[in-house]
């Protein structure tokens, strides 16, 4: 079989692996990761010392260890502790925890970039701490954080390829499976690379559009 024919034949299986594997893995991990990230950011900013220290420790561990090692630990250590999870949810957990650390720092910075007057104005109209965050500070912080968060998101699309190592059938794993009987790894990996590139290019365009739409309300 020639290279071109292999590439054409495997195109739809790879697209399917993206749609069923890579993309939901990315979206789920990013969504859970963002929730974690907000909590991490608030912990880091907390005036309660122990809470702030826990946040700091979390960020330090996540940023100080390789993502692949984090993935292995969750995949192999959890069963050892009696928690049995399929590869897919293990991968979602590992990536979420990782995004939580990195995006947490981004969101912390963005919260600090919201002018102090916004906190005061919210206090003056008698909003409590949580409503101030939810209605005044976080909407503005997210707008400030969109460019760096987009980087995290696009990075995550590619990082999900690590899940192939723990047998999650996503884009890279599918191309491996297709390549194995043919020994034509170069063709298959190149094709996988092109599809990753395509996904990330689409996301970059989407990021630009979102930024233009939202940046007009950012005051800093």
């Amino acid at each position, binding site marked *: 079989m020639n290279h071109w024919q292999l590439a054409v034949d495997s195109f739809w299986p790879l697209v399917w692996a993206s749609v069923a594997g890579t993309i939901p893995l990315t979206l789920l991990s990013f969504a859970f990761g963002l929730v974690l990230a907000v909590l991490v950011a608030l912990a880091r900013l907390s005036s309660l010392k122990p809470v702030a220290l826990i946040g700091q420790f979390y960020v330090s561990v996540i940023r100080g260890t390789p993502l692949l090692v984090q993935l292995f630990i969750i995949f192999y250590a959890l069963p050892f502790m009696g928690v049995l999870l399929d590869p897919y949810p293990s991968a979602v957990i590992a990536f979420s925890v990782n995004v939580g650390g990195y995006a947490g720092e981004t969101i912390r910075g963005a919260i600090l970039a919201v*002018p102090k*007057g*916004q906190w*005061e*104005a*919210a*206090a*003056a*109209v*008698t*909003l*409590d701490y949580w*409503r101030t965050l939810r*209605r*005044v500070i976080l*909407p*503005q912080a997210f*707008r400030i954080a969109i460019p760096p968060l987009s980087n995290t998101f696009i990075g995550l699309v590619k990082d999900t390829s690590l899940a192939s190592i723990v047998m999650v059938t996503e884009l890279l794993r599918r191309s491996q499976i297709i390549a194995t009987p043919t020994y034509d790894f170069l063709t298959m990996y190149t094709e996988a690379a092109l599809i990753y590139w395509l996904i990330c290019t689409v996301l970059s365009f989407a990021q630009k559009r979102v930024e233009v739409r939202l940046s*007009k*309300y*950012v*005051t800093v």
Partner: protein
Amino acid sequence: MALLEIRELHKSFGDNQVLRGIQLDVPAGSVTVIVGPSGCGKTTLLRCVNGLEKPESGRVTIDSTSVDWVSKPSKQEIHELRAKTGFVFQAHHLFPHRTALENVIEGPIYGQGKSREWAVGYGMELLEQVGLADRAGAFPHELSGGQQQRVGIARALALQPKLLLFDEPTSALDPEIVGDVLQVMRNLARQGWTMVVVTHEIHFATQVANQAVFMDQGQIVEQGDPQQVLLNPKQPRTQEFLRRVLDPLADSDAPFVSPTETSAVDAPAPLISSGEGHGVGGHA
């Protein structure tokens, strides 16, 4: 009884004593202006009234809700005090991601638990009152500085406070739109709102205020009838300050001359002196 009572208020930032035992009464339905040099503590005093700044000691009472700062008041106590005030900031601090109307109804709905229907109705009424009903759907960045500040005033009014606090509401505005904001404030005074205004608008103060307070170095130096305090001050520090405000170019050693006796600027001075460095091509 006064609507606002401030007793023995002390506040420091580190070693810097910003307020040193402030006592002040503001009767219901009256307007009090606070003037003084920058750094005298006037803004801090205003911010201490609604707890944006936490004094070390002293007591603030608004309409029989009292906070004693010596005994570490709870969040709830501070919230109750704050709920009696509306605060207008120098730099308006509108929420940039919300429209004019949304800015106004935020406090009533999410701070005070009022219904959206009521808040929108009252909010529109207030925007009408500050002359911005037709801009209700505009975002702050689509409004001029004066319009932004008037939305800020409507936002403060929407809380139905007992007391309105203004922190230099016109200092950040272009001169030609200051009048719009002052007019809104004068109308509020006529409607009987109790107001405390930190300002440099001496003319507004003498026309609208019932009480003037001059502060310096964290203390009230002189207080009383605005005509007297601002036009015929007794204290040398007040005289010195007002001379600088009314005529910034005056020789600082000259004696105080009341603007009622003679206009601060009688002879028009040339806009640009003929001194060196101002000529065409001076930057070459």
